[in-house]
């Protein structure tokens, strides 16, 4: 958990639509995504494989490859409060300046993103050479060593080649590279997926420490919701290219409002608190080429109503004081009381947990689930 205070918006995504291909065969991979990343915040983006998490992140940075294209919406980046760069209107030159120095990305399968025939040091100094031309060779070398030390690798490893490093070390190098120019936004696409849980935890703890120190914001993409609950300040849950719920991490964990979030949360066991039955979510994610009508989640939703089969719910802000959340579900539209497990009172003012104290027990989420 962090000592995050809601700051100024840094990256604003509104109504972003991303298609693969064009014309009648186009696959709508991301539909109407609304997302705000605040200064210094860790925003988690969760969802199953193929739900559009990575597509969304790459579309924000305009890194998506053909045939991906952005078909609507806007992405605003605010380097300083009050100034705005429209990333969707930005030219190639602007993007070139912004990327890495302002917004950097730790790619999926980051371990394989390192060039196998160049030493770590060469790859780290390459970035500096391109973006900080005023630095001398010795200074670049020193900075590269500094960066490695920052992620817990000794500077004498600069001469090593990627194959001489372990998976965890390569991952650290990738993170160090992403932080080389002290960006304000770091987008991490499943950065720890290939690592074992111990290494994963070490790296994430270091990452969170670095964030405290350097103050960058993180857009953290993962399918591991339990991980996000722990490190993120707020969480957005995606399903079939749509954002279905967006809330503070704590609120989402304790009081999910969307049946899909509830399903995700009851798919992993809690280490504390009373025992509960793991239910998971029946079925599998839909084919984006042939989405069901109405709410895309209704075929797998145990709460589905007639309305869900015909009308698509929009992501609506819930009118609850102190609870910054939006959800796309007809159950929460206020016309009827939602089922009790989707109306657990949210912790309005989550007390900052003392270090070392055990987290509060999780509520029995699945008790009354059919």
């Amino acid at each position, binding site marked *: 958990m962090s000592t995050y205070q809601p700051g100024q918006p840094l990256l*604003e995504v509104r109504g972003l639509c991303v*298609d693969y291909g064009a014309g*009648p065969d186009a696959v709508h991979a991301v539909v109407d995504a609304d997302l705000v990343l605040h200064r210094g915040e860790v925003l988690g983006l969760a969802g199953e494989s193929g739900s559009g998490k990575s597509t969304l992140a790459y579309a924000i940075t305009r890194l998506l490859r053909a045939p991906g294209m952005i078909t609507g*919406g806007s992405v605003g980046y605010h380097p300083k409060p009050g100034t705005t760069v429209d990333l969707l209107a930005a030219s*190639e030159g602007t993007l070139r300046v912004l990327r890495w120095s302002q917004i950097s990305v730790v790619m999926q399968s980051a371990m394989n993103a390192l060039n196998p025939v160049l030493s770590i040091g060469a790859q780290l100094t390459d970035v500096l050479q391109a973006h900080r031309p005023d630095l001398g060779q010795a200074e670049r070398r020193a900075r590269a060593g500094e960066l490695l030390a920052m992620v817990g690798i000794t500077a004498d490893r600069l001469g090593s080649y990627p194959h001489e490093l372990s998976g965890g070390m390569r991952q650290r190098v990738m993170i160090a590279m992403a932080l080389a120019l002290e960006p304000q936004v770091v987008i991490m696409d499943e950065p720890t997926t290939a690592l074992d849980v111990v290494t994963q935890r070490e790296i994430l703890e270091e990452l969170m420490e670095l964030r405290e120190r350097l103050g960058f914001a993180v857009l953290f993409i993962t399918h591991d919701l339990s991980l996000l609950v722990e490190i993120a300040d707020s969480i957005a849950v995606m399903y079939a290219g749509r954002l279905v719920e967006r809330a503070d991490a704590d609120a989402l964990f304790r009081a999910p409002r969307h049946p899909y979030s509830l399903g995700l949360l009851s798919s992993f066991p809690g280490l504390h608190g009373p025992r509960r039955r793991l239910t998971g979510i029946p079925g599998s994610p839909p084919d984006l080429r*042939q989405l*069901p009508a109405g709410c895309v989640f209704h075929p797998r939703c145990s709460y589905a109503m007639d309305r869900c089969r015909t009308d*698509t719910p929009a992501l609506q802000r819930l009118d609850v004081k102190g609870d910054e959340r*939006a959800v796309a579900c007809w159950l929460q539209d206020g016309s009827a009381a939602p089922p009790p497990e989707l109306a657990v009172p949210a912790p309005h003012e989550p007390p900052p947990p003392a270090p070392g104290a055990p987290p509060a027990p999780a509520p029995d989420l699945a008790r009354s689930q059919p």
Partner: protein
Amino acid sequence: MAIGSSTDLDSAQTADLLELYPNGPASRRRVRLPRSPKVLIGLGGLIGFLVLAVIGPWIAPYSPAQVFSTTVSFPQPPSAAHLLGTTQQQQDVFSQLLAGGRSTILVAFVAGLIATVLSVVIGVAAGYAGGLADDLLSMLANLFLILPALPLLIVIFGFLPPSQGSDDVLIGLIIAITGWAFGARVLRAQTLSLRTRDYVDSARIIGERGWRIIGFEILPNLIPILASSFLFTVLYGVGTYTALAFLGLVNPNHVSWGGMLFYAQVAGAQQSGYWWLYIPPGMAVALLGTCLALLNFGIDEFINPRLRAAGLSRRRARRAGLTGAARPPRRFVLGVTPVVRSVPPTGDHRGPVGENLSAGRSRGGRQR
């Protein structure tokens, strides 16, 4: 669950699925050949040439060898009686063009087929067997690669008795001998890569025989390369046969496009301006080669979907109702995702920053 009731359940589930996916799941199973203009033109043209090869000699107005006049000694320009004029020997060029396709195409396809079979046998065997066999077979392929093909063919054809100089299958076989090595090397390289894949290992561990592993695990994965290699060799066959006939190494009485070019050369057609002697057969060879190459591009796109142009052709874009700003770019720049708006952006970033989501924005009912 009782077995008897499972069919009912299945049909109920199917009904559910059909309701969810009105287009039916079956439509997803279809193999999607790329339908770019390149492939359509290439395939259409090739089919046209194949049909010509079959019916050409029958639909030709005259026999290609028929001599119309023994008194005129100059090629006659195109006229109503002779659509493409006559040769120096006063034979009908149009009939020769129609009839000559059969020999050219037959030789090319025979050469392609035999060379492909040879390259599969030698390339896959070398790649799969490895060790000494690989070394020897690779050396053989390398030898044939460095042999200068045309001089070798000239020597071989020099030894052919004239009676066999018009045997298309034999000519195809001889051309194939000089044309298989390239395909064999490509197939060997891909086989080397495929044989270390996990699914081949597992087949080996199960105890499958070598021929079965090659036939059912490796060959199916080589088909795209095989098809491409086949077309390439056919193209090589067209060029080589035409060249040999042009040089007069094939029995000159055996009508083919290369043979027509040979007679055009003998008549000094280029110097004397008898364009109808060399342009029709030359164009036919060039068009056949173009069709083969276009089809090969299509196979490339089929193997590697990344090559498929993501941008739409003008016509398809118009049919899909995409115009102006909503039309995707023809070319994608790596690292800059294009923004193709069909609706004007709704967000306003120029205003004061603060509230992150306008609560009253209605986005409901927007279904895509």
